[in-house]
């Protein structure tokens, strides 16, 4: 991979060795609204490193900036200041189209194209990359199997599937082109608890199998602890805690080193705390 060349920071910063994975360097974002005297600041100097092959959960309440942070990785949001590096390369300097084709993206609304078959949905990234029909068909079948769907689903349309099946297709689509990074925004937020648990199990196995660097936005602490190696807690656009999974889990509601995490644990496990 050619992303290994060291890329120096701009004047004034120290020289950083390029790393695999995703890195946020003092990323800030303010909604562009100069007419009304400055918009809302959604991200405040977020610095974070996501090692290659690991899964990091971005946790926080609604409006904490976790989705915005996620969307800076595939350049759907352009930071007002700071840099986002994917495999050591500045996202801002990359061609957005090429960058996005190498990054998987899964959202709560799933966003399957309703006029296309499941097969075409899953194979879309490959279709865009100009792969042959045979190649796409083979890869699509493999992906559907990997996410636990029957082969005959390929010829159906999104409306013929259940919510859980649809989100499996969403995951299959995101991973079809073997992305460097997988971004997930509340992927299972709209599913019932049983389906949700099935999906979490499926995803955990899948991520272990593929070793894809993953960022997952959630407000569900249990989901974060189940899926992620690391949990990053955001509040008002800033990182207030950045802990390994065991750091959260071992600590419980009383012992956690970080006050913000303690509060989050206490809020989500109220009966334990009582």
């Amino acid at each position, binding site marked *: 991979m050619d992303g290994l060349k060291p890329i120096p920071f701009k004047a004034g910063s120290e020289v950083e060795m390029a790393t695999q994975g995703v890195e946020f360097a003092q990323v800030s974002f303010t909604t562009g609204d100069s007419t009304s005297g400055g918009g809302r600041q959604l991200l405040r100097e977020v610095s974070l490193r996501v090692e290659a092959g690991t899964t990091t959960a971005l946790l926080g309440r609604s409006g904490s900036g976790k989705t915005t942070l996620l969307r800076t990785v*595939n350049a759907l949001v352009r930071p007002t200041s700071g840099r986002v590096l994917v495999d050591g390369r500045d996202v801002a300097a990359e061609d957005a189209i090429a960058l996005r084709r190498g990054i998987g993206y899964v959202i709560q*609304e799933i*966003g399957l194209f309703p006029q296309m078959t499941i097969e075409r949905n899953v194979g879309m990234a490959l279709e865009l990359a100009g792969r042959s029909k045979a190649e796409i068909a083979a890869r699509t079948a493999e992906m559907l199997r990997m996410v636990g769907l029957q082969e005959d689903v390929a010829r159906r*349309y*999104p409306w013929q599937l259940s919510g859980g099946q649809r989100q499996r297709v969403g995951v299959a689509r995101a991973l079809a082109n073997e992305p460097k990074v997988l971004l997930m925004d509340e992927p299972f937020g709209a599913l019932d608890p049983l389906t949700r648990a099935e999906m979490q199990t499926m995803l955990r196995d899948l991520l272990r199998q593929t070793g894809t660097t993953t960022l997952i936005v959630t407000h569900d602490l249990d989901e974060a602890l189940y899926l992620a190696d690391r949990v990053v807690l955001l509040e008002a656009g800033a990182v207030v805690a950045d802990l390994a999974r065991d750091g959260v889990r071992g600590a419980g509601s009383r012992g956690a080193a970080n006050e913000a995490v303690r509060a989050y644990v206490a809020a989500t496990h109220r009966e334990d705390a009582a």
Partner: protein
Amino acid sequence: MSDFLHRYGGQIGRLTFEHVWLTASAMLFACAIGLPLGVLLTRRRALARPVLAVANILQTIPSLALFGLLLPVPFLGERAARLAIVALTAYALLPILRNTYDGIGSVDAALIDVANALGMTGWQRLRKVELPMAASVILGGMRTATVICVGVATIAAAIGAGGLGELIFRGVASVDNGLVLAGAIPAALLALCADGVLGLFEKRLAVRR
């Protein structure tokens, strides 16, 4: 009745053909302008308001007045059919423009988000996602425009552009209700046919979700 048809049948046929020709030409031009312009407006939203306002105003000009206003225009005034097509195009423009703009604008935001995140270029997004999703709404606009055109085209006879309006105007001038109906009934049937056929396509293109 058979006597009437014997006498006017040939004329009705010819004028119906002229009528269809006027309408079809105008629709062709209106689509050629309205579709790309509608797409452009979704890309440059600041333009949408003024452009739709202009199309709206065109729509409100009484048809007889528009025909009259265009008469002295050099190139147009030379041939009545040419002028009629331009005027009809102006009337057909708004529904096509409006529905293209609205149809694409109302595509689910999540689909646009995913299309972008997949690395689609603007053109790919248009072709693979936006146009197929908006197709039914856009066709609905064309359907409305066609019906309007068929109706307004009858007025075009007033400036000598031909079409079924000719029979109507002649009938009115000679107080001959048979003649009026000979123009009005085929014109109404044309409008109903266009409406029905395009409506069928519109249903076909609707995306099940």
